[in-house]
């Protein structure tokens, strides 16, 4: 690991040195960072925080452009087709990996259409239930669900959403198929969970932390490796007996295929700096997440993550047999 870091730092330094000759003083104008989701959502929030901080470091404004639609694939395909000059970037989450299987007719080749800048953050999920749900801990929950499978409804925010992925993983782990109730987005799903119209959901901490703290829903476990500072009383899935549920909604920055390595290295270095910014750390903490480490915020780190995640989700999605096209 240490060797990789050293070699990466070396590459970065070399790249920086050579880039003065190659693409003199990149960036020379505003950079557009495409978010493949509507303004105001959790991914948009992450993007704007990162873009703002990186802008200061790069000396050029990073403009955030929301290109929503088709589970993020519209925005991704727009960036895949953009000029590979480093002035069009993409910030996408785990959907980049899952849409490779969820969509059978993607207009781009997920693993070969992009250059990588780096991972940004990994937002954990929480397994939650309506306030008056019987079970007191995850073990109890699993037993109860197994005994009453025909009565339980599992909510999600639509095909391909974080909550849908996590729900599939949950059913895969406990080997019990449940009645799933899709919603159009997290808001309505959470409303029905608050109102007790549905029983269970598994969603990002971004959406659930405040409700858990407010006592309006019950939390059984977080899907991260360690307990969260924001929710110290909620055990991890490993502690609670479902280690296979470890999952996170990771976010990464991509550039179109053919973008010079000097550019992606420079962006990656800037990303690493941004992720150490106290403001970003504080804001991420409020969302229940932390920035990734330096060796993940690199082209190699993101490439490895994307490849392993495409492979991880393929069988789960295929087993569920639900596709988005």
């Amino acid at each position, binding site marked *: 690991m240490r060797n990789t870091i050293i070699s990466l730092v070396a590459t970065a330094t070399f790249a920086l040195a050579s880039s003065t000759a190659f693409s003199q003083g990149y960036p020379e104008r*505003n950079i*557009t960072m495409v978010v493949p989701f509507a303004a105001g959502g959790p991914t948009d929030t992450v993007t704007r925080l990162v873009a703002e901080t990186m802008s200061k470091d790069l000396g050029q404004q990073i*403009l*955030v*452009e929301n290109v929503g639609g088709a589970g993020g694939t519209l925005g991704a395909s727009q960036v895949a087709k953009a*000029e590979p000059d480093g002035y069009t970037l993409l910030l996408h989450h785990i959907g980049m990996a899952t849409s490779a299987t969820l969509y059978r007719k993607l207009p781009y080749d997920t693993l070969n259409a992009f250059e990588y800048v780096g991972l940004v953050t990994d937002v954990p999920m929480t397994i939650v239930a309506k306030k008056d749900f019987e079970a007191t801990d995850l073990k109890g929950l699993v037993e109860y669900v197994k005994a009453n499978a025909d009565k339980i409804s599992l909510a999600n925010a639509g095909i391909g959403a974080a909550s849908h992925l996590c729900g599939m993983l949950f059913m895969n782990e406990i080997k019990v198929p449940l009645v799933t109730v899709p919603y159009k987005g997290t808001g309505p799903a959470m409303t029905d969970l608050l109102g007790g119209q549905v029983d269970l959901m598994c969603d990002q901490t971004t959406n659930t932390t405040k409700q858990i703290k407010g006592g309006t829903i019950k939390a059984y476990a977080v899907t991260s490796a360690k307990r969260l500072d924001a929710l110290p009383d909620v055990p991890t899935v490993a502690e609670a007996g479902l280690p296979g549920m470890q999952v996170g909604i990771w976010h990464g920055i991509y550039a179109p295929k053919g973008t010079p390595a000097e550019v992606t290295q420079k962006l990656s270095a800037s990303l690493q700096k941004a992720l150490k910014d106290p403001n970003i750390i504080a804001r991420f903490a409020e969302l229940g997440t932390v920035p990734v480490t330096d060796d993940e915020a690199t082209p190699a780190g993101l490439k490895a993550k994307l490849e392993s995640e495409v492979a991880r989700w393929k069988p789960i999605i295929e087993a569920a047999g639900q596709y988005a096209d």
Partner: protein
Amino acid sequence: MKSLSFSSRDIVCGLLFILVGLFFAMQAYGLELGTAFRMGPGYFPFVLAGILILLGIIVIIQGTQIEHEPMGPIAWRGMLFILPAPIFFGLTVRGLGFVPSLFLTALIAAFASTKMRPGMALLLVGGLTIFSVVVFSYALGLPFRRFGPWLGQ
């Protein structure tokens, strides 16, 4: 007494409903209809399409009972210039960039009116472009490229 002549307006309207209904019905039939518990994606639209076809038939029947009204003039010139304008904007805003694309879009639209003279149009469209660039691009900071890659930038 109402005359028994057909209202072409209602016939066309009824036919339109029926055709659109048939289109949706055929498309929906190709989808899974499902059960009442787990309705498939085709269930609800299929029912709706059926209702639309039925309404189309009623409109045609009623059309035979209502007095005929003239259709009025049709805005051919308007359609020829107005409808392509947003399409042109869509085709060029990324390539040409915001400024030239908007200028040409408004210019195309301007010629929909027979009252528009070329000089007037250029003046009007020029002012409009400047206003839009100041408001949308500078003041609001929308992420549009002002001049696009097709112009060698």
